[in-house]
């Protein structure tokens, strides 16, 4: 026989103003099973909680219903309180008579009647509540970081410095990401390589970091604290352990005319290559598509010249399984490519800008390579078509971004600042040149950012034109830029030597496929979604997975580094305990009933349903039944509503509990 205690809160006057709390308490005391009912001004306060605890002990209460605010507000508070006097926390329920009653109704009679009914429902429900033990799961104190750009590097270093092992996976042959491609960085104009490469070396030499470059995530199994990640280490054709990084293979390779992707196709590279001279690890990769040996079976020059014998044409992809407890996703971004109009994509191409057919129309990242001292031009600003120094350069902002017509409505955030930086770099290198910028708005919030932007105009003589460009076309060796200056309301035509487009920041291609492997959600642009836009900006809704950098949304370097350190801090918090406690709201299979149809497995978004063999004493297989892994189950209950034989139950939301509430109506 249950002895239920009902506690009605006045919430100051928030509830008692419209609900007759004394009447609710006296009515509730008459409900079958209720042993004690009372009301109090502030139930969540210390004296209020003491009142509940005292009543539980004095009246030997078996269940508790607190009628107060939303359970989203104080369920944890009251469950903790009853736990302190020896009651299982899941035998305490809250009736929401504030947000769902007193605050939304004015009529006192109606509100009181509704409050009584709500309490009645919860009293019936709580009778069916069962003792639920807290579930603890072990924590593997190793982290996986996906992506070796500045976000991944920062997160990996922070976690490794805290004493935990980190596995870093990078898709490209070298870590470094986009930051390694930049020439100088705003707002201080320090050289990107100078601040980036020491971090790359730190990472490679860190005793707690295992680095898998030229590798991709194949599969992710498990759950918070206990992930099993399968990594595909692509065949490099070079033995990492033997290679000394002397680079003689690259100097001897006969294939020398392959466009260098790292240099945005401005320069060329060999078939055996490192993406850039400061690459970490400094171990080349054979590009099998372009290698003569792989194409024709004849060549092997690199193998002949390699002293340590590191070249291995027969190397195969290998799969490595790494157990980790937490995952930081830092896959970064790529720039919107105006040359393509992907099939079926809502994003429209830029026909008015020549669809990328004009060679001297380049994007911001290409300009970075031109300006970079280690770039294909050695830091000279020379235009791609004829190698001449451009004397008039037009920069166009918001190409793709903030354009609902083109399919991307968000602001790419970094372009205003990097365009200002580009005008400065250009002015430093071409003293008699003139930079023009077409812009919609200058969005330069950030420490020392506005000052930087103003400096571009006031000291570095960039001409900013507020307005957009309607058309670009080639005329002789010039590009005619037709635009408007809306601040004075005139049409503008500039004959430019070079046009630089600040194209939109987009998530990496394949971001959605990776998200599906990880079981995290993404928005319509395929940026990964954080659990809460303001209060949980680095956590994913999927427990144990954290976000860092531009894979979550456009971000500049300072923001990326901050978020990466924040993600690392979250991982360290998780690793501070040996075991993890989680709410026991999980599904359980009634094995006697289960017929093994596995309809539940089909609807489970978490892959929590496994197969279990039921055997008799002789060991003969009787049947296969479903088993829900309590570590993986997220507690949505979709399996229970789907099960045709009603063999699976979600603890805390059993059919019994729900039907009891409906019957109380």
């Amino acid at each position: 026989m249950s002895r239920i205690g009902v506690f009605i809160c006045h919430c100051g006057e928030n509830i008692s103003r419209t609900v007759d709390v004394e009447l609710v308490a006296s009515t509730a005391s008459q409900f079958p099973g209720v042993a004690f009912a009372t009301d109090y001004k502030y139930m969540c306060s210390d004296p209020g909680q003491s009142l509940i605890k005292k009543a539980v002990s004095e009246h030997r209460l078996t269940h508790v219903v607190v009628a107060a605010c939303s359970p989203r507000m104080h369920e944890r508070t009251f469950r903790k309180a009853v736990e302190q006097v020896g009651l299982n926390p899941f035998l305490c329920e809250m009736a929401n008579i504030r947000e769902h009653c007193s605050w939304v109704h004015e009529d006192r009679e109606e509100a009181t009647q509704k409050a009584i009914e709500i309490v009645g429902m919860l009293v019936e429900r709580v009778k069916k509540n069962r003792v639920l033990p807290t579930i603890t799961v072990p924590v593997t104190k190793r982290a996986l970081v996906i992506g070796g750009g500045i976000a991944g590097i920062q997160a990996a270093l922070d976690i490794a410095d805290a004493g935990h092992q980190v596995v870093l996976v990078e898709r490209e042959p070298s870590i470094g990401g986009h930051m390694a491609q930049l020439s100088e960085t705003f707002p201080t104009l320090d050289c990107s390589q100078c601040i980036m490469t020491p971090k790359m070396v730190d990472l490679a030499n860190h005793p707690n970091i295992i680095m898998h470059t030229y590798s991709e995530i194949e599969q992710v199994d498990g759950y918070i604290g206990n992930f099993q990640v399968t990594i595909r280490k692509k065949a490099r054709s070079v033995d990492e352990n033997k290679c000394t990084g002397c680079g003689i293979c690259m100097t001897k390779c006969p294939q020398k005319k392959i466009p260098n992707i790292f240099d945005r196709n401005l320069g060329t590279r060999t078939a055996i290559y490192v993406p850039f001279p400061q690459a970490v690890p400094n171990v080349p990769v054979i590009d099998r598509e372009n290698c003569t040996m792989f194409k024709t079976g004849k060549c092997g020059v690199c193998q002949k010249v390699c002293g340590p014998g590191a070249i291995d044409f027969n190397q195969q992809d290998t799969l490595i399984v790494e157990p980790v407890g937490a995952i930081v996703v830092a896959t970064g971004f790529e720039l919107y490519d105006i040359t393509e109009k992907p099939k079926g994509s809502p994003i429209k191409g830029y026909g008015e800008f020549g669809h990328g057919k004009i060679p001297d129309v380049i994007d911001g990242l290409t300009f970075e390579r031109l300006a970079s001292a280690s770039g294909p031009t050695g830091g000279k600003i020379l235009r791609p078509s004829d190698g001449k120094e451009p004397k008039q350069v037009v920069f166009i902002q918001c190409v793709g971004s903030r354009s609902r017509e083109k399919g991307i409505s968000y602001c790419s955030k970094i372009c205003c600042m990097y365009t200002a930086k580009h005008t400065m770099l250009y002015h430093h290198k071409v003293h008699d040149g003139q930079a023009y910028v077409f812009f919609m708005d200058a969005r330069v919030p950030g420490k020392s950012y506005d000052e930087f932007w103003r400096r571009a105009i006031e000291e570095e003589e960039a001409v900013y034109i507020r307005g957009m460009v309607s058309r670009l076309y080639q005329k002789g060796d010039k590009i005619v830029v037709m635009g408007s200056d809306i601040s004075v309301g005139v049409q503008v035509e500039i004959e430019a030597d070079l046009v630089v487009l600040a194209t939109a920041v987009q998530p990496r291609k394949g971001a959605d496929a990776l998200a599906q492997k990880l079981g995290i959600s993404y928005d319509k642009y395929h940026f990964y979604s954080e659990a809460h836009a303001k209060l949980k900006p680095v956590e994913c809704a999927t427990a144990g997975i954290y976000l860092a950098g531009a894979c979550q949304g456009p971000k500049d370097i300072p923001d990326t580094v901050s978020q990466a350190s924040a993600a690392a801090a979250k991982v360290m918090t998780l690793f501070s305990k040996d075991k993890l406690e989680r709410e026991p709201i999980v599904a359980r299979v009634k094995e006697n009933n289960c017929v093994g149809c596995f309809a539940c497995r089909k609807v489970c978004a978490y892959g929590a349903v496994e197969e279990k063999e039921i055997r008799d004493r002789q060991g003969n297989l009787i049947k296969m039944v479903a088993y829900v892994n309590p570590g993986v189950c997220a507690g949505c209950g979709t399996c229970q509503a789907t099960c045709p034989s009603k063999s699976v139950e979600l603890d805390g939301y059993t059919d019994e509990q729900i039907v009891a509430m409906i019957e109380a109506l």
Partner: protein
Amino acid sequence: MHTEKPKHDFEPKIIAFVCTWCTYAGADLAGTSRMQYPANVRVLKFPCTGRIDPVFIIKAFQQGADGILISGCHPGDCHYISGNYHARRRFAAFRKLLEFIGVDLNRIQFSWVSAAEGGKWVDVVTDLTERVRTMGPMVEFKDLALEEQWSGGLNSPDLQEIYEAM
């Protein structure tokens, strides 16, 4: 401020099955924003709309509910990745069944209300309440349930005829 509320002859009973992450939170927001709506609705909280078994709807009608609301996260926003999609499919099929057995589908509302949509919650609840009010009480299921309780079985003349024919 206090306008005299019109007294109605019939106050429908509305049961809302909602998910805890979106619609329950949206209803909380309506409260914190002090919006007003009819007091006819009783909210049952579920982790996800995917947990809502159609049997609960039948059960609620048997218990005298006049209108039913099912509401969860918007498509794509499910806290449990895809629970709301399963719910949507399930109720698309279930509606057909209810229609077949003669339930007026205007008594059932399926909607998406996010945690940020307190106003939408108020609109949905108000609309459903007023709509069901004009439709009058839903008695068929309740009568059936009562009959079943009293007689231990269904015993209408129509059914009797069918049994005998068999």
